[in-house]
């Protein structure tokens, strides 16, 4: 579904990604973790071409994101993305946040889009908030709306860029619960997160990054059993001791 082949990226002379290669199969849940500044957010943003990269290629569902002939908007519409800071559109009601892209990108009718949006909103447990504005919801609720907004586009895969790291501790679980459910339903997911509990529960594979490189790319059991690299062991020991 998602193939990342030898990509490298530089900001000026500073290399943020070095020769990263991995893939996500259909129905697979892959968790990407690593210390801050390791390039994991950058990597996931390369998948739907929100970040350009200088070398290598990424192929999503058979379509290359670097090919100048690729219609990037069309490709992005098929991949859902959830951001660290939710990025709901503050001037629109929740319903309009959910329907905007369905109407403008997928060409659905207003009624069809509203029905689909409402269904997704119900799924994340927020149906009664439909007429509010994003600023009137809590962080956890906003993030669930953001997930519903992405799902309303009927994506073939979902990308999560640290979806819980801007949330208060008590709101993390409501978002993780939605993600766990999605994973169990067989959604193809690539998640940048430090939530190792989530990784243990639903991930098939765990990727560990450090200094722009993919250091580990293991099955979940291998990774939590004993990661091969010392750097990953150090990292795990720092975040797992609680």
């Amino acid at each position, binding site marked *: 579904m998602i193939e990342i082949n030898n990509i490298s990226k530089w900001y000026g002379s500073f290399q943020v990604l070095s020769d990263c290669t991995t893939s996500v199969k259909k129905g697979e849940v892959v968790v990407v973790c690593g210390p801050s500044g390791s390039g994991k957010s950058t990597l996931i*943003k390369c998948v*739907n071409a*929100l970040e350009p990269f200088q070398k290598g290629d990424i192929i999503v569902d058979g379509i290359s994101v670097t090919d100048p002939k690729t219609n*990037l*908007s*069309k490709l*992005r*519409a*098929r*991949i*859902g*993305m959830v*951001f*660290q*800071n939710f*990025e*709901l*559109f*503050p*001037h629109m009601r929740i319903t309009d946040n959910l329907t*905007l*892209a369905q109407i*403008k*990108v*997928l060409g659905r009718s207003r009624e069809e889009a509203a029905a689909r949006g409402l269904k997704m909103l119900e799924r994340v447990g927020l149906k009664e908030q439909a007429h*509010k*504005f*994003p*600023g*009137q*919801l809590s962080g956890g609720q906003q993030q669930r709306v953001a997930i519903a*907004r*992405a799902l309303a*586009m009927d994506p073939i895969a979902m990308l999560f860029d640290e979806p819980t790291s801007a949330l208060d501790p008590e709101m993390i679980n409501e978002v993780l619960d939605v993600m766990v459910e999605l994973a169990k339903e067989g959604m193809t997911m690539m998640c940048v997160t430090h939530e190792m509990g989530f990784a243990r529960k639903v991930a098939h594979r765990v990727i560990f990054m450090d200094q722009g490189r993919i250091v580990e790319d293991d099955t979940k059991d291998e990774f939590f059993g004993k990661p091969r690299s010392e750097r990953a062991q150090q990292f795990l020991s720092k975040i797992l001791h609680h």
Partner: protein
Amino acid sequence: MHLGIFLEQVPDGNMAWWQMLASGLGWTLATAFFAWIMAFVLGSIVGVVRTTDNHWAVRIGDAYVELFRNIPLIVQFFIWYFVVPGLVLAVKRWVVTLDPTQHQFVTAVICLGFFTSARIAEQVRSGIQSLSRGQRNAGYALGLTQTQTYRFVLLPMAYRIIIPPLTSEIMNLIKNTAVAYSIGLVELFFRTREMAEMTFRYFDAFTAATVIYVVIALTANRVMALIERRLAVPGYITGGK
């Protein structure tokens, strides 16, 4: 000050002085109105262009802003009125078909339109750039094109954020129309001077002009405050209460 002067007839005219000032006010408002439309449209386009990732367009936009921002307004008036028709034959051919008042009016609108558009472009740019990169990314990630992302995601918030500086800009524009007296446009300041010089009632004439300018600037200010309240986004930390 006694108000009787405003009812006195203008020598060799069939108007009272208050009607003379009112006609000047009419030209002031008409100039400000059309210049505002021009400035808002041009300023928005240039402001948006300067936030895209097309390097050449950004440079041209930057040059545009610096050009109109860095030349004194009164100099720009003289350039548009005296120099441009001399340089561009087509303009000259067109200008000679206009009567002088029309020529002065069109020049004032164009001059103030360009001057103010450079300032609005700067505000639109800063408004868009004040939004997080994530908003743009969220639009793109949903499959919206760049144009759609600007139209539905970025600009609605950017305009809301820049309502206060835009208000100042409208008030500046209204006040800047007074400079058009320098090319002979019979706007409010021109008529005020005329009245003062012909009646030697400087105090009365300029007090009247001051009051009129203050009233229209305050009206513009109140209207914008109303718009700001109307467009306030619930739960979003901008626009006051």
